[in-house]
């Protein structure tokens, strides 16, 4: 008798599962994130074909204030199904506090995920052996923007090494112009551009990615000689007379989105305000409209110069990572779709898209702009060689990566090269 009841229960539950799991038609999945405007519209478009196919309704709500809102939502228990964090640090923090469901628990095929995005990316969302972060779109940071026409007219060649870049800069200064554009004001995040410079230099000095990883995980202190060397080289760019157009004032006061504008303006002698601007791939959307359409043609990029021949060509990047808050079949479907090679197709084809999808099997011919394709190939190439590294300041604890590191870079810019030791000591002290 008991057995038959048990058996009946099993059958009943199987029927229930079969009925419940058969169709996800009309299920709703709610995603929030920091994407707004065109990026948000592109993200939502990605789900159009998915909704048609599965019937799962995915709605995305982007907010400028996402990072605060998600904190409040987690505290109050009113979380979305999936949240798209602008940095992996947010995912790791939420996972440590126990708010997230790991991808393993959700039933994502981790081997496939690793194969399609690289184990480095998968490892970014790891907490205590479980993985919480889903990879999404990236941007490439190891690039320097320049105008080939201006270089050709003056007989400059694209620098392949750091020393060549410095030599070129000296030549430009000697000819009465300014080589670099540099502006890092960013409303509460001021200083991140300098941290990007530091990271790019760190990836190319010492033991390259090995030192970089140790630096991120605090296995070497922040005032280690390798880090100091990187800061000294950065200070050389910031503080050498005539290198940066506008000098220190420009560095700390120019909004990063406007920093490249001097390059697009000619003075009375027909010279642009600056020739080189090291900035991530997303900067194109901040350019004046008429320049934006010429991205990749009139204004294009060369890779951040190599510093040590013995090291592989490293690429620095950053990007979003999504985290899962609720466990349901519909959410699982959405997550699997977001990690599939077809996910980013709709957004990639938008003319305003400058974001790069990290999946190795993604068809890069779909990108609307040639420049995006070039950068995407650079990212996937670096990922394959395990030479792609994520923005260090996004991976460090928030007190450092979003606090003292940024702040001390601003102080360094203002105070000059004599401040390097104090800046690094202060950051080291603030590490929790």
């Amino acid at each position, binding site marked *: 008798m008991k057995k038959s009841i048990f058996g009946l229960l099993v059958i009943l539950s199987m029927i229930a599962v079969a009925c419940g799991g058969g169709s996800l038609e009309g299920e709703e999945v709610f995603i929030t994130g920091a994407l707004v405007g065109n990026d948000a519209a592109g993200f939502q478009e990605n789900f159009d074909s998915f909704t048609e196919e599965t019937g799962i309704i995915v709605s995305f709500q982007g907010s400028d204030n996402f990072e605060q809102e998600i904190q409040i939502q987690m505290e109050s228990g009113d979380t979305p199904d999936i949240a798209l964090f602008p940095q992996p640090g947010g995912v790791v923090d939420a996972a440590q506090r126990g708010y997230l469901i790991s991808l393993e628990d959700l039933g994502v095929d981790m081997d496939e995920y690793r194969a399609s995005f690289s184990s480095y990316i998968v490892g970014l969302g790891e907490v205590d052996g479980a993985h919480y972060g889903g990879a999404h779109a990236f941007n490439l940071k190891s690039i320097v923007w320049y105008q080939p026409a201006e270089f050709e007219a003056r007989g400059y060649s694209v620098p392949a090494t750091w020393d060549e870049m410095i030599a070129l800069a000296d030549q430009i200064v000697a000819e009465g112009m300014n080589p670099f554009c540099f502006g890092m004001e960013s409303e509460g995040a001021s200083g991140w551009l300098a941290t990007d410079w530091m990271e790019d230099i760190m990836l190319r000095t010492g033991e390259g990615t090995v030192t970089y990883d140790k630096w991120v995980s605090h296995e070497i202190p922040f005032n280690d000689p390798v880090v100091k060397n990187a800061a000294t080289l950065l200070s050389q760019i910031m503080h050498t007379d005539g290198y940066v157009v506008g*000098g220190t*004032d420009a560095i700390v006061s*120019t909004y990063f989105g406007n*920093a490249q504008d*001097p390059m697009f303006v000619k003075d009375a002698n027909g010279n642009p*305000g600056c020739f080189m601007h090291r900035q991530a791939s997303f900067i194109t959307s901040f350019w004046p409209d008429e320049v934006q359409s010429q991205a990749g043609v009139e204004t294009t990029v060369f890779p951040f110069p190599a510093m040590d021949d013995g090291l592989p060509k490293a690429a620095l990047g950053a990007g979003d990572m999504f985290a899962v808050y609720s466990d349901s079949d519909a959410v699982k479907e959405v997550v699997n779709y977001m990690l599939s090679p077809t996910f980013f197709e709709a957004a990639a084809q938008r003319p305003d898209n400058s974001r790069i999808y990290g999946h190795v099997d993604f068809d890069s011919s779909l990108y609307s702009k040639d420049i995006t394709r070039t950068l995407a190939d650079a990212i996937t190439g670096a990922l394959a060689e395990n030479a792609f590294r994520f923005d260090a300041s996004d991976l460090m604890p928030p*007190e450092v990566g979003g*606090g003292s590191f940024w702040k001390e870079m601003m102080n360094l810019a203002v105070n000059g090269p004599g401040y390097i030791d104090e800046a690094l000591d202060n950051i080291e002290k603030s590490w929790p």
Partner: protein
Amino acid sequence: MKKYSQQEKLLNFGISFLALGAFPLVWFLSQAILFRELTDLISRNMLVVIGLLVGSSFVFLLFSGMERIIKLAPIERRDSLEAKMFAGPSLFMIFLFLFYPAIRTIYLSFKDRYGTSFVGFENYLWSFNDTEMLVTIRNQIIWLVFVVFFTLFFGLIVGWLTDRLNKGEAFFKSIVFMPMAISAVGASAIFKFIYEYRPPPLTQIGILNGIRVSTGEQCYNNRVIDGVVKGYDDASCNRAVGWLQQRDLSNFQIGQSLESASWLDNILVNLPLNTVLLLVIMIWAYTGFAAVVFSAGIKAIPADIMEAGQIDGASELKIFVSIVIPYIKSTIIVVGTYMVITVLKAFDIVYVTTRGDLETNLLAVKMLDEFSKYRNIGRSSTVAVLIFICVIPIIIGNTYREKENSSL
């Protein structure tokens, strides 16, 4: 006073319990459950319509229900019960939305970054040792002193001068008052443009830098003269300055000439220019408010006192200092109190302009930063408690003053 029998007491208690406890609770819960169930059943638009209908009648039905129960009580008890009925809900709301969060914030300020384990006074020690916190506290003090003083000062002057006008008083007062109509965020955006910096050779669109770079023989802010764009790259021209990034005056000639001189010069050279430029926004925004309130106070001064002063040969200044100011002293204190509390809460100006970069932070912004940027609930609560502690003496002082006034 009438003595109640045991039975009457019991009846009274029963009625108060029903009217002020059980009924509102059941009524509130039934509504809450109703809406929770409805959310899944009907469409959003329908829900809004029902919400408007039921929600607007909620309070009405609550009070009429309570009154009906109170009517059961003996007539001499009704008055006190009705008083309780009206005070009760607001007391409950104050407790729920004011006292409970305040107490919980104080409790959290003794906990760690996740709010899980106790850390004692560690957060408070941090707030008085951390360099960034010390700068924030310094800025808050500078804001308090400058903003409160200058708002009162300019407010008094404007209030007094407009009162002396023969005509056009309303016009001038409304011009000075106008910034009050702009939100602090809007005002900050306006001033952000005034202080705007662009790297050369771009045209300076901020008025301060625009003036700076176009003073000089060969200096033009990219003006087109005879078809040629004239820039400001001549060596004789002033450089543009990132105003909100200047932590001291060392970038200016005046700062350089003052360097390493007496202690007074030292203070001047270390004047946090960016903080001062930010607090100017608040002075600009609140002067009009102070002026209008003072002007109303000045209007209330009896004309015969002023005339007596004039007959005695007192100068305008003497009248102002010896008659006007003592007469509107209490108004000045009220406006001052209001300004102190407003400055302690000041948030939007810094949030919109610099977000606290380069030593411009204020406590309210720091509180939010600790919560959302550094994800440290304990420290964030500590900063909130510090602001709260600063406000307490003012509230107490104000209450005592009110008592003194009413006892006169």
